[in-house]
């Protein structure tokens, strides 16, 4: 899994590529925790390069959404593949965090 970070206004964008499983989820968890710790409050995770997510990966998003909400911030997910979207749908993640079809939509919603 590879991650890279960028900013658009007050929105921090974390690009995630590869597989998110028990081996790679601690790294993403650390990255997201670090962002919240450094003051980021509007965070979009761009998933267009994410090929796979397991239960361990889902827990990372849940934890980040919780921490951001506690800090009066917001986590949004953007452009998941059909396969990843299917897992989010089965787990009902849209009830906890918004999932947008495109990065622009997600950034626009978080910037408001």
């Amino acid at each position: 899994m590879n991650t890279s970070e960028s900013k658009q206004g007050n929105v921090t964008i974390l690009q995630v590529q590869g597989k998110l499983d028990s081996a790679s989820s601690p790294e993403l968890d650390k990255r997201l925790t670090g962002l919240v710790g450094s003051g980021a409050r509007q965070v979009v995770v761009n998933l267009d390069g994410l090929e796979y997510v397991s239960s361990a990966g889902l827990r990372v998003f849940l934890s980040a959404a919780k921490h951001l909400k506690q800090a009066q911030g917001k986590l949004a997910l953007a452009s998941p593949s059909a396969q990843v979207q299917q897992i989010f749908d089965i787990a009902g993640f849209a009830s906890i965090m918004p999932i947008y079809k495109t990065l622009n939509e997600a950034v626009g919603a978080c910037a408001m």
Partner: protein
Amino acid sequence: MLSFAEEIFLLALDDKQGVIKPLPVSALDYALAGAMLMDLALQDRIDTDLTSLSVTDTKPTGDPILDDVLRDLQQNPVPQPTSFWLKHFADQSKRIQERVLARLIQKGILKQENRRILWVFEVRRYPVMDNHEVKEVKTRLRELILSDDIPDSREVVLINLGNACRLLDDLFTPAEYEKVRARIVALARLDLIGQEMAKSIREIERTMAIAMSMTMMA
């Protein structure tokens, strides 16, 4: 901290009577199996997806019950779906229940009492000695469900287990429960192992209902 198997056992226990509350058929068997797998998942020993469950770390957890489960999971060289393992461990539920009970007694949370009914039948009961942990869990879950807070992974598992065994309605008034039912269902879905466990319990209930209706029609 209690294991999920211990927590669900305590939630399922009627504190005053010292016996397990009436639960859906096989619910406790599958809830204990699910509890052990979810404990291993949260301790990063296993991972799951929509098709299979895999062991990701063979290091013992230090919990003898979980470590036996972890060893058992490693015996099968071919990855199996979560539903396969839920049934496998649910089939061993009686032995697991005895081990969980023994541990709760050893921790001073429950005590064992043997009583005779009609001077003949011996009934074993497990009155609660120290229920502060259960009270804390119930209060935390109630507050979380009534709020719009996002749960942590541990809370998701407890909501899932409690909902699958239909034990969460005890935490609310009937009017409150009606209002929070949809949120409970949404939160319980967030864990994939928990979802499989709830599905297994529902399938058994459905099969039993069909069998009963066929018996009544015959």
